[in-house]
């Protein structure tokens, strides 16, 4: 295992440019994620983390470059096709269906995985997220931020993804909740799902991810293991304000 790379690359992002209107946000971004591994995509606010995640999920359309999942090119495809190809996306601002109950939110997310597997059932989700089981009939809009974050992750899991994109799951939450989410992500990682975790906070990622990439002003400036990143003060000081 060298430089956080795996021979078995499941998700590969090559040289993508993304524009919002006339302004260019991503400049030739490259990423590789190994099967079953967890990649932390780090960077300051506005560095391009969320845009990268949106591009992978198909919500932002790359103007050039390719995104492939297990060799299948998905760049520019509709979000639902990408989702059915096995990429589960958890957006940064949670976006629960506020007028629906918790259980309805989960039902909307339900679909078989790429190989037809239905590993994640309501029971398993309620097992993993006991708090959701208690609140299953409550309107999602009435839940706290942390509970909504749990719900969005659970909702995406109901679609049995191969790769889970988590966009700043700890943002704006109380420390104790952040901890709970951290341990949840570790649990998920142990089930074998591949995770891409966009974060500002490197320390949050330390115990969770193996690999790391750093993005700044739309350019990837670092790609290796998280341990290597921790050791590289030049990078962390310059790009992560630590």
């Amino acid at each position, binding site marked *: 295992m060298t430089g956080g790379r795996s021979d078995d690359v499941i998700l590969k992002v090559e040289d993508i440019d993304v524009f919002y209107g006339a302004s260019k946000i991503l400049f030739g971004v490259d990423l590789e994620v190994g099967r079953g591994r967890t990649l932390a995509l780090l960077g300051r606010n506005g560095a391009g983390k969320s845009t990268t995640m949106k591009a992978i999920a198909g919500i932002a359309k790359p103007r050039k470059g390719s995104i492939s999942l297990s060799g299948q090119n998905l760049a520019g495809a*509709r979000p639902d096709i990408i*989702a059915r190809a096995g990429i589960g996306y958890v957006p940064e601002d949670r976006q629960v269906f*506020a*007028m629906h109950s918790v259980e309805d939110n989960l039902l*909307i997310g339900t*679909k078989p995985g790429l190989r037809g597997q239905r590993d994640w059932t309501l029971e398993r989700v309620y097992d993993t997220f006991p708090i959701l089981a208690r609140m299953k009939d409550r309107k999602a809009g009435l839940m706290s931020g942390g509970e909504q974050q749990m719900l969005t992750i659970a909702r*995406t899991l109901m679609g049995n993804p191969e790769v889970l994109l988590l966009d700043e799951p700890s943002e704006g939450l109380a420390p104790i909740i952040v901890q709970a989410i951290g341990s949840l992500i570790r649990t998920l990682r142990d089930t074998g799902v591949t995770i891409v975790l966009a974060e500002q906070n490197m320390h949050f990622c330390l115990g969770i991810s193996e690999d790391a990439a750093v993005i700044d002003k739309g350019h990837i400036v670092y790609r290796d293991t998280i341990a290597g990143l921790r050791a590289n003060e030049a990078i962390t000081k310059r790009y992560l304000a630590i």
Partner: protein
Amino acid sequence: MFDFDALAACMSTSACLVNQATSGLIIGMLLFLVASGVTLIFGVLHVINFAHGSFYMVGAYFAYTAYVVTGNYFLAALVGAVGAGICGILFERLIISRVYGQNLLMQLLVCYAFILIVDDLVKIIWGAEYLAMGIPAEFRLPPFRIAGGYVPPFYLFLVAVAVCIGVGSVLLVTKTRFGKIVRAAALNAPMVSALGIRVNIYFALLFGYGCALAGVAGALAAPVRSLTPGMGLGILVESFIVTVIGGMGSIPGAFLAAIILGLTRSIGSVGFPLFVDGAMFMIMALVLIFRPTGLMGQGEPR
């Protein structure tokens, strides 16, 4: 302008009450079917389907042809509904989906164009002459007498079907996965799409369902109303009034408003016959002034 004596005389006899109440219900239920389609489509897709009356017309004509061919009215009604639904899906996919999110003006114009085209097509296919289906044999029965009033069996059937469809629509939207997805997509389509759901298909199906409701109304009206190109216009204006009074997006609201309008018409025809239309517009104006979201509407105020 007001004939209170006639109104009082009517209110004091059970026969008149029964007659006017059933008459109000019948008028109201057909309006409700059309309006519930308008309100459903607006609630989810945020477009006003100004062409909804065309699907009412198409449903009536399909039902007419199916009845002429098969002689089975129930089958004909089904053909009317499904035919209008399919036309609705095509209209959504090919035309209206291109102006989603655009300003009202664009939506208005494509619908205006669609109305012109469909009216002319109907004229080419079925002719400009009015057609009449006639009462199907099953319903050629003398009217029931209830408390001195008259209630034709066909109208009982019509009201029953409308109520069932209304309840079914509410259940479809609130209880089924389809309805839950569609409602979620109405508020946040990209998120629903990111969960692997083909939102476009759901939108098209919903649009088709809304049009099928208009088609059913057309098919139910076909035995008693004469079929002409352009017949959708009148019911369109009235169903908009119902939609606005009930609250855009609310099916129960449309139901309530349709009954209010139906009764206004039937009671008005006794008490203030010349002012019936005026009264409908007046109710709509009052609702818009004092409760712009309608009787049961939620959503953005004003």
